[in-house]
């Protein structure tokens, strides 16, 4: 027993050592289709002795991925970068900045929160030329500039946020093998999707896996559903007005979008575990049902990051694939795409922090993550050949070629709504409350913070 323990300890020590040896730089400089010249260019920055702390929402596999990118910056410049992740980032960053001990750089999953901090003078503006750079180098550049521009403490607008790592949300994931076995085709319109849903029920299956659980953030996956539905039954202008509350939350147009979501989530026959399990199932566990045998469900509507939570060894494109969450064929609204992204802001200015933000513009900072897992970017200067996985490349195309691209609405709303009552309201709705009632209560909170 003791020997076995020693042996496994030794083996563990060995693998740890190895992981450090070749895990430092994931891809050897000079090899492959990467833009190595942008890596070489970084070496002109000498940052030895600089310590840069970054706080972000990524944990687990995502933490390893961001660290694999950070290693290149450290290697080229000699800076010491410390990334820490928190699954209650929204609370953590507020506490840290208010307490006067912020990290150098914060990675916001929500522009609304970044805007709040900027308005209190807790974010440092980015250099003036950054806005021009984003306009020129990002697809749909102006929209990204708009999303990162906030009013500062003095009320003047400036660019505070830089988008890095973008997600496409209008995706439905499925297991091609299950579709083949049952003889289902990928639906091309919302009408076909609804027909397929009924077909699956008629065949004795469960069409959807939906999970809203996310610890303190429980409810957010439902807001994505509602936003996607908003774009599919209302115009983009209505959508924009909605996120600014120029269109009231309890407007019939919004209530209709909530009920469109309810048509899927509140039907016991449509969702794995029944409607009662929707709100309590963790969104990370929810897609697992597609991979069970026999399948617990056939489809899962979720953003591009979700393969991180697929069972280990799942190959996207083979074992799991996605299709565009379709629009209604008989409504003339094009093919709208809902997306989101993390916005990086400087919370404690330093030479190193500004240098790191500069690094995010370099193609290599994008390509290292692209070559691994689940990374989409609007950066036009990257070499898309580094995508190891053609399906992710396909997803990036959706992002670049959408008729309408709209940012996650809840992230654009004030924090108290978008990361507060909208979430809890959707949980109440999934639990059986009336859509109009929920919408009215969200609107009343919105009125109260104006």
């Amino acid at each position: 027993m003791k020997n076995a323990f020693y042996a496994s300890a030794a083996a563990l020590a060995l693998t740890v050592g190895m992981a450090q040896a070749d895990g430092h730089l994931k891809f050897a400089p000079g090899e492959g289709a990467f833009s190595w010249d942008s890596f070489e260019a970084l070496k002109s920055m000498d940052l030895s002795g600089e310590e840069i702390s970054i706080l972000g929402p990524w944990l687990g596999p995502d933490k390893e991925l961001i660290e694999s990118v950070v290693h290149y910056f450290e290697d080229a410049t000699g800076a010491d970068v410390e990334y820490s992740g928190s699954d209650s980032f929204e609370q953590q960053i507020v506490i840290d900045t208010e307490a006067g001990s912020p990290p150098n750089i914060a990675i916001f999953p929500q522009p609304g929160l970044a805007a709040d901090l900027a308005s209190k003078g807790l974010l440092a503006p980015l250099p003036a030329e950054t806005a021009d750079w984003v306009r020129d180098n990002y697809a749909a550049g102006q929209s990204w500039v708009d999303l990162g521009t906030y009013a500062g403490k003095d009320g003047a607008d400036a660019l505070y946020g830089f988008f890095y790592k973008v997600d496409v949300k209008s995706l439905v994931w499925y297991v091609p093998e299950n579709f083949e076995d049952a003889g289902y085709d990928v639906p091309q319109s919302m009408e076909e999707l609804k027909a397929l849903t009924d077909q699956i029920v008629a065949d004795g299956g469960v069409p959807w896996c939906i999970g809203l659980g996310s610890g303190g953030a429980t409810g957010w996956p439902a807001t994505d559903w509602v936003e996607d539905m908003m774009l599919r039954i209302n115009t983009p202008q209505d959508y924009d007005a909605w996120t600014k509350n120029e269109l009231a939350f309890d407007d019939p147009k919004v209530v209709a979008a909530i009920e469109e979501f309810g048509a899927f989530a509140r039907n016991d026959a449509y969702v794995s575990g029944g409607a009662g399990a929707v709100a309590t199932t963790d969104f990370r566990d929810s897609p697992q049902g597609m991979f069970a045998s026999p399948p617990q469900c056939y489809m899962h509507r979720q953003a591009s990051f979700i393969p991180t939570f697929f069972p280990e060894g799942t190959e996207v494109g083979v074992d799991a694939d996605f299709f565009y969450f379709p629009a209604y064929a008989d409504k003339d609204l094009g093919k709208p795409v809902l997306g989101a992204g993390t916005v990086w802001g400087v919370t404690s200015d330093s030479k190193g922090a500004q240098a790191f933000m500069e690094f995010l513009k370099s193609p290599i900072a994008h390509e290292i993550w692209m070559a691994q897992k689940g990374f989409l970017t609007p950066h036009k200067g990257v070499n898309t050949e580094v995508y190891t996985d053609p399906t992710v490349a396909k997803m990036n195309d959706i992002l670049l070629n959408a008729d309408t691209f709209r940012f996650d609405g809840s992230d654009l709303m004030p924090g108290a709504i978008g990361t507060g009552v909208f979430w809890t309201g959707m949980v109440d709705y999934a639990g059986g409350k009336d859509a109009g009632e929920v919408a009215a209560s969200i609107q009343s909170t919105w009125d109260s913070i104006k």
Partner: protein
Amino acid sequence: MDQLLFAVSTIVVGVFGCVAYFYFSNILLDRLLPASGPNAGANINKANAIRPWLFVLPALLVLGLYLVYPVFSTFFLSMRDTRGAFIGADNYTWLAGDEKFRESLGNNLLWLVIVPAASTFFGLVAAGLTDRIKWGSIAQSLVFMPMAISFVGASVIWKFIYDYRGENQGEQIGLLNAIVEVFGGSAQTWITVPFWNNLFLMIILIWIQTGFAMVILSAALKGISEETIEAAYLDGATPMQIFFKIKIPQIWGTIAVVWTTITVTVLKVFDIVFAMTNGQWGTQVLANLMYDWMFRGSPDFGRGSAIVMVIMLLVTPVMIWNISNAHKENR
């Protein structure tokens, strides 16, 4: 290393600073009011009147800094908006009309009625039962054990008890659902059942606090004089009559202290709700609502502080009653 040095030097400076303060302030007082010369008598009287305050002063200053100042600072914060501008009582008028606040207040009242009552009752029963049996102390330590678990730890344990798996999502791993299914019932998502989910959360706190109530009450039961009980026996009282008519009236004061102590804990309940439901499905409570406004999304210190003031106003009378009761007990 730096922190260690800093901590050690703080301790050294603190301890020697205190000693030096008491030593030198004493000398100073003796110099200013010497116990000799023409006014010796008056000086001694004056010095004796001042001396206690000299010793209490540092404590008073620290208490003022850590207790009184925050109260006023919170009160002033509660009259400001997110940008720090003065808005008077607006936050309080918002509170009065807010649906979630009313839900929280209602839930807090529920907690306030049920948890102290149930904990004290179960604690009393446990104390009464374990008082007279041989393995009573073992039983007591088992009942007391949950007291050693943190609220969040306890919530994690109970999360598994209330766990729910959907119809085709595999076997139930939640203890409660397993039991329900054995008896032929169907599994429930316990923590989402309106109204009742509040009770399911309260059970966690009752589970924790019963041990506390039991320990204090059992000490009180042991303090009852044997003569009264023997006299009751001789008069032919049944054990039930002895418990309710002889013992309980004698420990009434202790029951009140236990009750109010748990009441104060309940008013501050946050961890269990945060870890189990985060206030969703109609289980919001004041402390968690405060946290939501204070730290989630766009922080609103004004509204958060207004909620804190409400909690404080509710706690204070209970606290005063609790302390005066404890004093009476000690007399």
